[in-house]
C-alpha cells in the first residue's frame, strides 16, 4: 500500500484498490502520520456535512410551521431531530457555537440578525420565506406579550416596522444567494 502512495493510480488499480479492505494495522499506521490541512478546511467539511444531513431530513423547503414554535426553539428542535450539535451548525453558519446557543435560547431574536445571517440560516434549514414569517410572527407575539423594552424599541408599531424591513431585506438576500426555491 505505502509503496504506491505517491503514484497516480490507473483505472484498473483503482478498481482493485476499492475491493481490498483496509486492515486495522494499516489504519493505525495512517492515524500516526502527521497531517496538514488548508485553513478553514474543518469548518468547510462540517458545513457540507450539516447541509447533507439537513438536506436528507428536509429535501424540500419547509413551508408551514405549527403555532407552538418560536424561532429559536424550532431551530433547536430541528437540529436535535437531525442529531447535529450546535458546533456543527455554528460551523455551517460561519459563527461561534455561542451564537447558536443564544439563538436557540431566544436571546437573539430573528429580526435582529443581519439579513445575510438570516438568509444563511434559512438556506441551511430549508425554511421557506412564508415559514420564516410564521416563525417571526409567533416569536413576535410571545416576546411582545412579555415586553418590548429589552428590544430597545419604544413601541410595538416600531417593532412591526423593523420586522417588516427585516423580512424585505431577508428576501433580497435570499435572492442574492440564489435561493429562489425558498421564495417561490
Amino acid at each position, binding site marked *: 500500500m505505502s509503496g504506491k502512495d505517491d503514484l497516480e493510480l490507473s*483505472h484498473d488499480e*483503482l478498481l482493485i484498490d476499492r475491493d481490498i479492505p483496509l486492515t486495522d494495522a494499516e489504519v493505525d499506521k495512517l492515524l500516526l*502520520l502527521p497531517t496538514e*490541512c488548508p485553513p478553514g478546511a474543518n469548518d468547510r467539511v*462540517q458545513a*457540507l456535512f450539516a447541509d*447533507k*444531513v439537513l438536506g*436528507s431530513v428536509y429535501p424540500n423547503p419547509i413551508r408551514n410551521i405549527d403555532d407552538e414554535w418560536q424561532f429559536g426553539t424550532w431551530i433547536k428542535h430541528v437540529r436535535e431531530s437531525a*442529531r447535529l450539535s450546535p458546533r456543527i451548525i455554528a460551523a455551517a453558519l460561519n459563527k461561534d457555537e455561542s451564537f447558536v446557543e443564544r439563538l436557540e435560547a431566544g436571546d437573539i431574536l430573528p429580526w435582529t440578525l443581519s439579513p445575510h445571517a438570516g438568509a444563511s440560516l434559512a438556506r441551511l434549514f430549508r425554511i421557506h420565506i412564508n415559514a420564516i414569517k410564521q416563525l417571526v410572527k409567533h416569536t413576535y407575539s410571545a416576546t411582545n406579550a412579555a415586553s418590548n423594552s429589552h428590544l430597545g424599541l419604544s413601541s410595538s408599531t416600531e417593532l412591526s416596522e423593523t420586522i417588516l424591513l427585516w423580512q424585505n431585506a431577508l428576501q433580497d438576500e435570499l435572492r442574492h444567494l440564489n435561493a429562489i426555491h425558498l421564495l417561490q
Partner: protein
Amino acid sequence: MINNANFICRLQDGDMAAFDILFSQLNEKLCARIAKRYRLRYQDVEEIISGVFFEVHQTVAKSYNPSKGKLTTWIFDIAKKRAIDHIRWLNSPRQQFLSTSYSLDSTASQNICEVSQCLFVPPSQGHSGKEDEAASPGKRRAQRALDSLDERDKNILRLRQLMTYEEIAEIEKTPVNTLRSDYSRAKMRLFTAFEKDNDP
C-alpha cells in the same frame, strides 16, 4: 478512544457530542489521506469527506459491526471507497463534458468577448471550421458538439452564458419558463452530441 466500546455505544445511540469528538479526531486525518493517496483537489476531498461523515452519521448504528474491525478502519474504508467512486464519476464522459461547460461559464463571467470569440464565433467572422489543434480533446469534442446544434439551440446556450433567464426573457419577449425548457433541451442535445462523438 474512538475505538473504545463505550464511545462506540455513545455514537451508535446518536450522541451528538460523541460525533463531534469523532469529527475533530478524524476529519484532518481522512482529508490528508484521501488528498495524498488519490491526488484530488482539496475541494473534492472536502466534498468526499463530508459525505463520509454523513454516511457514518446515518449508518453507524446499523452498519458498523465491532467484531469485524475497528471503527476507524470501517470509516477509512468508507472514505477510500467514496474517493474511488468520486474519481470514476469525475472520469465519466458526462462529467468531462460538464467540466468543459464549467470552464466556459467561468470564462464568460470574466470576459464575454473571449467567450464569443472562443466558442461562438459567427461564421461570417471567419471561424475556419478547423479545430483548434492546441485545444484539449474535451474542448474539441465540446466545440464539435456545439457546431452540430441548430442556431436556436446555439443562441439560447450562448445567451445563457451571458445573462439571466429574466434578462433573456426581456430581450426575446419569451416567458421565463419557456426559456428554461428551451435551455434545458438545448443542453441535453449538446450533451447527447458530445457523448456520441468518440473522436479524440
